[in-house]
């Protein structure tokens, strides 16, 4: 389990998922601006160099975020899973070695090898009756994470208020979060839950659609609108501003209409594995 966590983290930093590579190739085909093409061609060269040199795609090793889907009959208790994820992140950082980013939020002093109080961040989902475990590792870079936005809209703002806020946020972000990336949107729930859902949305495989057809339609519409802003690759202007727009939603209070935006940069790193009840690890079980 500890070894799997270490592998997932380093693997994510080195090797971009296939769906992302395809999305980046599509972006280069669509882009027409000189600077945009220059940026996207450089991105492709970079991915090739990372593959051949076995180096990290991006120097920002991020803050490690793990999503766990645990069966209720999986033999290791979540407390043990969390301990292993933390130890694995630490081991990968020391052994590779990777740059450590974690600091105490007030003193700004380093807290160790990409671990600290409540870091890495682990999210849980429990599956009744199942005996397996799915783990997804998303190293989240700070350039894109700094471009996170929350607005407590009122019900009268409606769906158009949501669209308007998302568009404003992405224009405001400009080139800072390394566009073209994945825009994750969380709607409904509560303030904290909307942000949680926005992060869950960026962690989905690219171009997947929300099972609720109304939400999926909003994903399509916002994807189109966002690419009309002209922000372009690295904010230098162009046709491709976002690779995708994913939305997660939750039902909410009748007086609430929260919308949260979380940005994932073009280097949208993501790896996952399935661990069986017998401890066997099957990598690349995408979810």
């Amino acid at each position, binding site marked *: 389990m500890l070894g799997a966590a270490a592998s997932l983290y380093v693997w994510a930093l080195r090797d971009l998922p296939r769906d992302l590579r395809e999305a980046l190739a599509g972006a280069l085909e669509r882009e027409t601006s000189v600077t945009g093409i220059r940026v996207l061609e450089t991105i492709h060269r970079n991915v090739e160099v990372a593959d051949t*040199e076995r180096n990290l795609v991006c120097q920002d090793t991020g803050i490690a975020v793990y999503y766990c889907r645990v069966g209720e009959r999986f033999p290791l208790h979540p407390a043990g899973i969390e301990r292993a994820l933390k130890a694995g992140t630490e081991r990968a950082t020391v052994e590779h070695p990777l740059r450590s980013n974690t600091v105490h939020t007030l003193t700004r002093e380093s807290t160790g090898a990409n671990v600290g109080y409540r870091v890495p961040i682990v999210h849980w989902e429990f599956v009744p009756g199942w005996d397996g475990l799915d783990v997804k590792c998303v190293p989240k870079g700070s350039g894109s994470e700094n471009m996170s936005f929350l607005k407590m809209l009122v019900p009268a703002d409606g769906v158009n208020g949501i669209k308007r806020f998302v*568009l404003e946020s992405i224009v405001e972000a400009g*080139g800072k979060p390394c566009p073209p990336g994945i825009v994750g949107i969380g709607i409904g729930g509560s303030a904290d839950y909307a942000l949680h859902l926005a992060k869950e949305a960026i962690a989905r495989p690219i171009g997947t659609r929300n099972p609720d057809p109304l939400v999926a339609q909003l994903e399509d519409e916002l994807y189109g609108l966002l690419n009309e802003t002209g922000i372009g690759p690295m904010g*230098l202007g162009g046709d491709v501003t976002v690779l995708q727009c994913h939305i997660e939603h939750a039902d909410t209070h009748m007086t609430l209409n929260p919308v949260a935006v979380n940005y994932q*940069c073009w280097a949208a790193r993501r790896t996952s594995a399935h661990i069986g009840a017998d401890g066997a690890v099957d990598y690349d079980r995408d979810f």
Partner: protein
Amino acid sequence: MTVTHKLTFPLNDPAAILALRAGDEVVVQGHVIGIRDRTQIRIFDQGIEPPIDLTGALLLHTAPNVRKLGPGRYEKLCIGTTTSARMVRFTEGLGERYGVRAICGKGGFPDQAIEPMQRLGMVYLAIVGGAAALETTQIEEIEDVAWEDLMPECLWKFRVKDFGPLTVGIDAHGNSLYHDVQNRARQRLEQLSARL
């Protein structure tokens, strides 16, 4: 029309900086100085003089992944570029007090950088953020490092070869691609909102 400039830093010829126009491509040889938030907080907020000469320099917003080889000696592992906007307030001081000629980063500087860059003859060169694997191959060696207590936000001196491609994001004539892109995007935002 794409114009490509090949420049060697440190660069003390103001005409070479004035020849750069927003949108042009730049490829760099020579030396690049790595700098970040804490490095500049130390210089400007704590008033400590940088022990590496910044005259005519191209600065790079970075905090590299390195392996320590011995006292003051480091091997590059993965060197990339961080978001510049956080550090915009240091621009004027870097140009005025230390003679910095160019700042390389990602994501751009907000408009407050335009005036001092024009007045002091400085440019902002945009690199492709996240493209660290490629950037690392263009950095030949870490030649010097100061302020190791700020690791990884030290003051670094890198020798580079064919560093780029970079795009002139803000030139020394008052033009900023970021300003133009933002302006156009805000106009489009109004049009898009009207369509909703």
